[in-house]
């Protein structure tokens, strides 16, 4: 066999270490969910502001782009002295949330920009106040774009969580660094396969949620945002 004493995959590792793997999976889900939730809570109001007041747009996108360019690893190292170096959820979450912002804000603004002027005029003519129009016309019509952003952001975050293993968290990333440290394939493959599976399940859930929330797009194909 190509891998000699280090087989490509050894099933007994999975059965023997199931508790640990399960714990890592739960931590992975927790880290990802918190990041997406906080990222969404920050991004949507910011996107609305950037959409309504043009002069905010440049600084908002500037900061979000800068956060996106800084390597995740470096962000952990920079935040370390402030929020704690080892196994700090705060350090990990600040960095992970930073990555969701550009994707989520970009898509939300694109969605709001794409709301047909007719729909907005109709809302005004019906007597909607600007904030009511925002909540009941603009944001709902922007939902397909927001969901497109959520899907990209979720996939990105689930992949990035593995990197937090280098500061002692990592979820499934712990399997990856463990396998690397003892030069053993199986844990790395466990981490890889489970995080891909997690991303796939999360994507399916988001697609399902979108169908429930935005039933009117079901019949026609949604425009995909090329990133």
């Amino acid at each position, binding site marked *: 066999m190509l891998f000699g004493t280090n087989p490509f995959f050894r099933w007994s590792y999975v059965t023997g270490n199931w508790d640990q793997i399960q714990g890592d999976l739960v931590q992975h889900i927790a880290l990802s969910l918190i990041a997406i939730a906080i990222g969404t809570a920050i991004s949507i109001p910011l996107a609305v502001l950037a959409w309504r007041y043009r002069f905010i747009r440049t600084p908002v996108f500037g900061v979000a782009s800068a956060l996106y360019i800084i390597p995740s*690893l470096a962000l952990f190292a920079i935040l370390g002295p402030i929020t704690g170096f080892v196994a700090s959820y705060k350090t990990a979450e600040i960095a992970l949330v930073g990555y969701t912002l550009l994707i989520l804000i970009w898509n939300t603004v694109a969605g709001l920009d794409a709301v047909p002027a007719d729909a907005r005029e109709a809302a005004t003519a019906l007597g909607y106040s600007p904030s009511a129009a925002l909540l009941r016309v603009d944001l709902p019509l922007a939902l397909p774009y927001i969901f497109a952003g959520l899907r990209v952001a979720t996939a990105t975050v689930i992949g990035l969580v*593995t990197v937090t293993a280098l500061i002692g968290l990592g979820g499934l*990333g712990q399997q990856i660094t463990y396998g690397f440290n003892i030069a053993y394939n199986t844990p*790395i493959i466990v981490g890889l396969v489970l*995080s891909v599976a997690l991303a*796939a399940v999360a994507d399916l859930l988001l697609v399902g949620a979108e169908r429930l929330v935005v039933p009117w797009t079901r019949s026609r194909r949604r425009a995909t945002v*090329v990133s």
Partner: protein
Amino acid sequence: MSFVAHVFGWFTTAANWTGPQGIPTLFWHQLELSVAVVLGAIVLGGGLGVVLGHTGRGGLVAVNAANAFRAVPTLALLTLLAIQPAISLKWNGFLAAWIALTALAIPPILTNTYVGMREVDADVRDAAKAMGLTGGQVLRTVEAPLALPFVMAGVRTASIEVVATSTLAAYVSYTDLGTYVITGLNTNDSVVAFSGALLVAAMAGMATVSLSLLTRALTPLPLRHRGRTDALARDPTVGRRAATVNI
């Protein structure tokens, strides 16, 4: 001394600018790796995207597969390759890093190339065929120039991702600017880590600017942005040149 002063002090220390762990060496390592990765991804991902887009067959399957592949954590690929004896020591860890990062860079380039090829107006393609152009000529003179802005957008996305992620290569096998970041993490030295991050961000910025310039230079004149179109309208010499190109 404040944090900023410490970072400034690090950058102005002569010892940090020489030797195998010096800024020039590690900057060059990172640049070498990133350029090799992006070129590889253009050949593999862009090539496949062009073929699929030109023939119009099997494209959606490939694009979906490429996007699913995006979910594979780069750290897993890197570590897996770095512990294979046949690969790990090849070219001081360059090969392991190159394979893992190229896999990361292919999806955005493949997707954008394919979308760009399919976005070419079917009428334009038919007109080119009706004028007697062969398949290869249609590809070279019609489809490629029209798809180029899309392809370059993919190359830009991929380049930023690659420059940022190649820091991870320092964790497994290679020495580049990520070495500063990893050293900083391991020794709780945020000054070194931050300085490394600044250098990486500078390289990402350089990549963005030079790729924008390249995109502009490669885009056929009539396809350039509206700002450019206005300039064309104002400048009679440029306008004439553009008209000649159109004929």
